């Protein structure tokens, strides 16, 4: 008898737990749908015929599907050039940041030279400096160099990435010393060590850092916005907010441009999900 009641209460408790769990899961899914809706709505709108966008009522699917907005944006506007500008500057930032940081990280981690500690502390300290506070002086500097309205002008001030050096240093620190000594015994130079041992052993980290640096550079707004005023030199993130159609607002087209601007990143994320996650953890100071 008592046994029966025991099993009964446990069963009800389990059921209640499951019910609560079900509700929580339901809410999570609902939240995800709400979160994704703005993206969905933007994509759907960009696939509608312009007149249909303005008809009253909510149409969750286009009445007439079309890619005209995208074709128009890519062939008849400057979006293509903006795309190219974004691509070139972001790739340049990524390559330079990763290479210089890896090299600097290697030196700080593995080589003994005067001023090493000072450099390390400077790096840790510069972590804190808010880059937006430097816009005035970056602008003056780029004006002095005559680099405003150019790719280099957009790229240069984005090259300050102490975090990347710090992460590389930490990963190079954990490469076993035996490998290093064995290679040195065989007469390897520092450059061989770096390119043949330390970099290959940390390809994963390099991929992760490259992806996150690229995303960061592509997403920059403030600096490219200041450094470039001529429409043909703008990055896509700046262009889509500063240049408007002379014939009034075209919602579907505007959204098509916006989606094109975000697309490379969305693809990059969906393909390299794990690496992106890892890179975010690392830059936040959590070893993933």
């Amino acid at each position, binding site marked *: 008898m008592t046994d029966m009641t025991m099993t009964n209460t446990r069963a009800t408790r389990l059921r209640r737990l499951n019910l609560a769990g079900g509700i929580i899961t339901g809410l999570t899914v609902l939240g*995800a749908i709400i979160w994704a809706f703005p993206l969905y709505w933007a994509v759907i709108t960009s696939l509608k015929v312009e007149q249909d966008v303005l008809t009253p009522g909510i149409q969750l699917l286009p009445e007439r599907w079309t890619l005209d907005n995208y074709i128009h944006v890519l062939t008849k506007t400057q979006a293509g050039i903006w795309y190219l500008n974004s691509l070139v500057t972001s790739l340049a930032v990524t390559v330079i940041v990763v290479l210089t940081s890896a090299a600097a990280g290697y030196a700080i981690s593995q080589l003994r030279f005067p001023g090493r500690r000072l450099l390390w502390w400077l790096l840790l300290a510069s972590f804190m400096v808010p880059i937006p506070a430097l816009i005035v002086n970056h602008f003056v500097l780029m004006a002095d160099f005559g680099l405003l309205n150019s790719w280099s002008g957009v790229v240069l001030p984005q090259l300050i990435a102490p975090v990347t050096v710090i992460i590389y240093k930490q990963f190079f620190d954990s490469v076993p010393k035996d490998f290093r000594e064995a290679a040195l015994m065989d007469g390897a130079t520092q450059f061989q060590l770096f390119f043949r041992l330390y970099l290959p052993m940390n390809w994963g980290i390099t991929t992760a850092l490259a992806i996150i640096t690229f995303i960061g550079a592509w997403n920059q707004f403030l600096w490219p916005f200041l450094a470039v005023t001529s429409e043909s030199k703008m990055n896509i993130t700046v262009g889509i907010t500063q240049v408007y159609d002379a014939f009034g607002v075209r919602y579907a087209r505007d959204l098509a441009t916006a989606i094109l601007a975000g697309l490379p990143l969305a693809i990059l994320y969906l393909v390299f999900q794990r690496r992106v996650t890892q890179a975010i953890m690392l830059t936040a100071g959590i070893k993933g």
Partner: protein
Amino acid sequence: MNRFRRQEVTAAVVFLLPFVLTYGVLFLWPTIQLAVLSFQKAPLIGEGQWAGFRNYARLLNDKLFATAVWNTLYFVLLSVVPSTLLGLVIALGVNRLKGWTQSVILACFFLPYILPVSVVYRIWMWITDNQFGIIQYPIAAIWGENVSIFRTLPLFMPTVAFITIWWLIGFNVLLFIAGLRNISSEIYEAAALDGATRWQTFRRITWPLIWPITVLVATIQLIMQLKIFDQIYLFGQGGRTDSTLGMVELVYRSAFQKNQGGYAAAVAVVLFLVIVIVSVLQFQLARARGQR
């Protein structure tokens, strides 16, 4: 003096040169110049005159500066605390899911985070458009008419903060999930055996163990949102920006629209100091945590 091997030092110089050069020219030099400029009466480009503390004194009497500071703090308040707590709530929900469902749901919350601010701006301008925006249907149903959200002052900051939370929450969720995964399942199993309720489990186990991550997320958000510019600038374009500007926007305006480089630098130095102080506090907190 021969603590260092010559060959090693030469290699170090070669390895460090590109980095040190960019770092010196693009970071240290501008930082020093910023401090110098803040003590000058100078245009954006061109020679300035020494002005002592006059720029700083001017800050104290500048209504715009007060507005900028207030707006920045207001925005920080509206965005940092809610996005931290909501991030934890979402992470708790997502963490319960398994396999591909988890990946899909997580992607829904995370995708906005990797988008450029301009795309976020375009999407939400469309959603909130005061003629055709989808959000105007519920607004019209409740309020009786369409509302031009970004032209209604009391709605401006909360809406921008809301959009910012929508945009950036994925970052917080990710960090919280990592934190939750680090809590060993044995503790939960033990609690379940003892018949702990869901709330007790959260209150006594999850919350205290996730607290360090909560602090981390909140401080990262705090430092990030103190530098707020993009969203406020974009959504405020063409509006009454005198009442919506933040500190970075004041730097931008003083320097690039009013051509007052010295004054802009002084504003930037204040922002600089605020963020350095917050970062030092965070660093100390993190260290204290590490030692414990």
